[in-house]
């Protein structure tokens, strides 16, 4: 393919990279005493907007059929065109997704960064790079590319987690995150190698082709490979039993980073998981469905039960996000091949992700606001929030309802779709477990509500959360309601995004 095509198809990623580099550069320039560093977050924000615009610009190219992005190996090596990434609806969806994540995180991190972090520029740049990694991983169709993008995402995440160098929790969280992550990715890599060995190719589509038509008895290799790949992706999504790093990392990381971690890597992981399983391993459906079903149940249950005990809101939300991932997984487990029905499971998964994006980032934005003020993310920091800042309290309440899945909030639509898929596939068990869990979850979400509305904080003055956070929280809250009350466009977006995948399946 020609360079121009190449550049056009990669436009969003390129834009993002560019902005990230610019931020870095400006940081260098402004390092010494120049007062205009406060512009950096806004530049970064502009970058996310640019990403959004770019994504929208090239939308037509990808929305239909999808366009492969290939790298040409040199002439002496046969010069064959190896497809590395693809610009298809799913990829586009996640570009959009990433843009929103970045925007919300950046909006809500302004004050926090100013208060706690020395190197602003690097921080923002890293976040942008992490976003870049997300878009890449969502688009990758080649094991190599997948590995690269995920590693990219991981390394940036490690660094962001450990960014509070003076805070021992932060560094400790980073170490654990790193050790765990590196190991997990090594395992995944080993899985990739086996998969390659079994099929002789790294391209997902061709893997499927080989496996379906192959005569050589290599299937025995595929299942172990599958398992090992699941370890890597399970780590990214924080599925039980690959979740244990999450609470520590989340608690230790700077709260904006926690917000990002609770959404970004999860989403990327799901994107890759979907693509990998549906494109490369459709033939092994029975295997991975059964495994994932088990994982989903364990994830939901354990996440919720352990969350009951947390007194630190960051950690509590960490476990909650683990449980949420469990619900989303139902969508993948109960995916319905017949794409015509209202819920294909996959679209449920995307809707849920989308709802979760706004809900969770909104919730974390509130946590950041409270932490900025009280300097603590313990439960009692939320006492009497309703009196001190009713806007935050009400929106937080909304987010919590959405996490529980009570209408009229986005979370309800998400649950409606994934549970719907489960029932459609006659996986009543899954649905029931999910329902029971969402009831259990009320207990710990209630703990926060209780503090906000019923708790009394005598000597806590009212406070103002600042413009950035206000916008972030407001937008998130608005979307949470929108997705429930005006669900149509979002449902369609999700359904379109997975249409190709579901069809190829």
């Amino acid at each position: 393919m020609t360079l121009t095509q190449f550049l056009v198809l990669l436009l969003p990623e390129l834009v993002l990279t560019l902005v990230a580099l610019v931020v870095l550069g400006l940081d260098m320039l402004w390092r010494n005493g120049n007062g205009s560093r406060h512009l950096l977050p806004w530049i970064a924000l502009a970058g996310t907007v640019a990403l959004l615009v770019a994504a929208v610009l090239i939308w037509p190219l990808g929305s239909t059929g999808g366009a492969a992005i290939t790298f040409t190996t040199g002439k002496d090596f046969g010069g064959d065109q190896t497809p590395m990434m693809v610009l298809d609806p799913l990829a586009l969806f996640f570009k959009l997704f990433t843009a929103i994540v970045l925007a919300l995180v950046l909006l809500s991190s302004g004050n926090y960064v100013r208060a706690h972090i020395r190197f602003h520029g690097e921080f923002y740049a890293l976040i942008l790079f992490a976003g870049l990694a997300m878009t890449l991983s969502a688009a990758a169709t080649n094991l190599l590319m997948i590995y690269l993008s995920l590693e990219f995402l991981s390394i940036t995440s490690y660094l962001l987690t450990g960014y509070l160098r003076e805070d021992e929790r932060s560094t400790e969280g980073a170490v654990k995150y790193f050790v765990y992550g590196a190991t997990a990715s090594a395992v995944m890599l080993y899985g990739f190698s086996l998969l390659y060995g079994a099929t002789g190719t790294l391209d997902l589509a061709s893997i499927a082709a080989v496996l379906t038509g192959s005569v050589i008895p290599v299937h025995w290799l595929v299942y172990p490979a599958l398992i090992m790949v699941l370890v890597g992706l399970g780590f990214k999504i924080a599925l039980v039993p690959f979740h244990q790093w999450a609470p520590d990392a989340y608690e230790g990381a700077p709260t904006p980073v926690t917000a990002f971690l609770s959404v970004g890597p999860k989403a990327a992981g799901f994107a890759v998981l979907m693509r990998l399983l549906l494109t490369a391993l459709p033939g092994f459906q029975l295997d991975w469905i059964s495994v994932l079903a088990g994982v989903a149940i364990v994830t939901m249950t354990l996440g919720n039960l352990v969350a009951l005990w947390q007194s630190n809101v960051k950690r509590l939300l960490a476990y909650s996000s683990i449980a949420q991932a469990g619900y989303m997984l139902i969508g993948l487990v109960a995916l319905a091949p017949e794409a015509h029905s209202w819920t294909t499971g996959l679209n449920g998964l995307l809707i849920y992700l989308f709802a979760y994006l706004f809900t969770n980032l909104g919730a974390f934005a509130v946590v950041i606001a409270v932490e900025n003020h009280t300097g603590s993310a313990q439960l009692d920091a939320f006492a009497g929030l309703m009196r001190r800042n009713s806007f935050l309290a009400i929106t937080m309440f909304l987010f919590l309802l959405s996490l529980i899945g009570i209408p009229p909030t986005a979370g309800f639509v998400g649950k409606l779709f994934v549970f719907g898929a489960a029932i459609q596939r006659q996986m009543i068990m899954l649905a029931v477990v999910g329902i029971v869990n969402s009831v259990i979850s009320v207990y710990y979400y209630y703990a926060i509500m209780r503090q906000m509305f019923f708790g009394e904080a005598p000597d806590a003055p009212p406070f103002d959360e600042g413009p950035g956070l206000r916008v972030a929280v407001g937008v998130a809250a608005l979307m949470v309601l929108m997705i429930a009350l005006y669900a149509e466009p979002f449902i369609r977006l999700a359904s379109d995004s997975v249409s190709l995948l579901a069809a190829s399946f």
Partner: protein
Amino acid sequence: MDFLFSFTPLIPLFPLLAFAVIVLFTYRYNRLSSDIAIGSIALSTVLAWAVLLATLLGGEHIQVEGWQLRVPWLPAGTTVLDLGFAVDGFTAAMLFMVPFVCLMIFIYSQGYMKLGQPDQDPRYARFFAYISLFAAGMLGLVVARDLVLLFVSWEIMGLCSYLLIGFWSFRKADDEHHIDEAQVIRARKAALKAFITTRIGDVLLFSGIALLYSYTGTVTLREIFRPETLETLQTISLLGMPAVTVIALLVFGGAVGKSAQFPLHVWLPDAMEGPTPVSALIHAATMVAAGVYLVARMLPLFIAGFEVADAPALHWVAIVGAITALLGATIGLAQDDIKRVLAYSTISQLGYMMMGLGLGSLVAGIFHLLTHAFFKALLFLGAGSVIHGVEHGHHVAAHADHVHTEHFNPNDMKAMGGLRHRMPYTFVAYLAGTLALVGIVPFAGFWSKDEILAEAFHLWRADGALNLPFWVWLAGTLGAFFTALYMGRQLGLVFWGEPRHTAARHAHESPSSMTIPLIVLALFALLFGFVNAPFLGSPLHHFMGGVHEASEVVHAEAVPFNFTVAAISTVLAVAGLLLGWLLYRNYRPGQVEPFQVVLGPVFTLLRNKYYIDELYQQVIIRPVVWLSNFCFNIDDRWIIDPFVDLVGAAGRVASDIVRVLDSVVVDRWFVEGTAQLFNAAGRGLRYSETGRVQNYLLVVAVTILLLLGLYLYF
């Protein structure tokens, strides 16, 4: 003259309006209120008698077919249920008595509640409001065309009895009124007892009506009594019996409650706690009459049952009636409270009426109901007048010598005596009432009671064997003797001998507002019997006997006057009266009662009313209260609240661990067990989060091996 019938709905309406007006507007103005009440009931009386007149002139077709008015009331599926009013001979006969007696009582009350005197009752106006509603209820019952309206009136009376019996069940703190704490509590208990006890009966009646409505699709009396309807009821089987029997029994249950038949008679004597006019109202004209009236109205149902069932409801009516008659009469022998004696006499007289109906004779029962209404009202008002006088005497005495402050019960007959000189009008009237009750020729009671006994005797002779009618007759005759006995005792204690207490010595005649009604009623007690006197050809029979002809099951022909029966009962009556009078005329306070000498332990038994109250207390009330507490404990202590606490506990788990640990060790096994489930799970799992990354990775490794193992296994 038929246009007069269109006034029928107004008859119950006037008192109802009086009630509304008094409660809403005039309750501050006592005289005005009582005038409104009396005026309204007077109007009703006039209208009622007008309607009676119209019925008399209307002749056969009105008296039997009746006149009626329908209003659509509520839609029921594809049908519409309508209510209405109806008048026939029977109704007309009742209409003669009810409003008139009520009127007398109203007038009397004006004096009794001490209008315009310093110690006038603080809730005077309210009292008249209530009795007006009471009258409205009874009148509504009488003119009701269908069971729903009948039941509505029925329950309104229940309510009024509650309100009036409990009329003195509270008082203002600054209240100079004579009632004391003890009476407040007694009145409260009595009111509740009356309502709940009758309520039991009401519920049975309620069920009966609902059943009738379900099976016949109508609640209109005349439609129910259509032969074909009755046949369907005879054919349907319910609980192993013909439906008609079941329904009849349920209806009778209602009557048992309202008319204080055994075993639901216990509320009536306690109802004495209310002001005396109320007792008169309840015992004579309204409440208790309602039950008898109901059974009489539904007689075709009973008789229809009689044809098909082997254990017909009709027999039960007779049996219960007989038992009640004896029960009341005997207990009456051993009471000291002047009003309680009358109360038990009422119970036993009601028993007579039930006997009459139980023998299938509508007229006998109703005739006794009517006469009884007059003379029993008379007796109660007389007793009231006596009490009033004695109380007054008590006050006088109290003022005379200031040392005199011990508790004094104005109802106690043993504290009276020699009143015939002090209260001549009352005495004469009372005497008339007594003779009527005892059944001495030519007083009203003689004719009516005699008819019942004659009926029984007749039926017995008709088949000869010692059948039910024989026992009924026997019970009735014995009852007559006991009745005479306790009335003799009462006369002796109250009016003869020396005053047994200073109060009696200072007693004096009541105001004219009280004595005039007495005299009027006395006249009725003397003369009213002739409306159905055999030698006049039993006019009442011809007037109302035919109302149930349409049902083709009831045939009312007057039983010929039977000299034997009349002779026996009269002789016994005179004997009893004299005996009682002789024994108690010169009774001295403190000395052992003559009857006790004669009867010994039996007397104690009677004095304690066969211990029935105590029995109920143990067998019914206590268990129910216990049960309710039991359920409450289940709800709140043992099972469900703990379950709820589990929820709460789990909810608190989230918020903070300490409180959770508390709630985990809540000292209830249920929480223990279940809360553990969550908390332990949560806690246990939580500790898998060791904070050591290598443990985490170990988990990963193990997981991989596990999954691989599974793979190899399958």
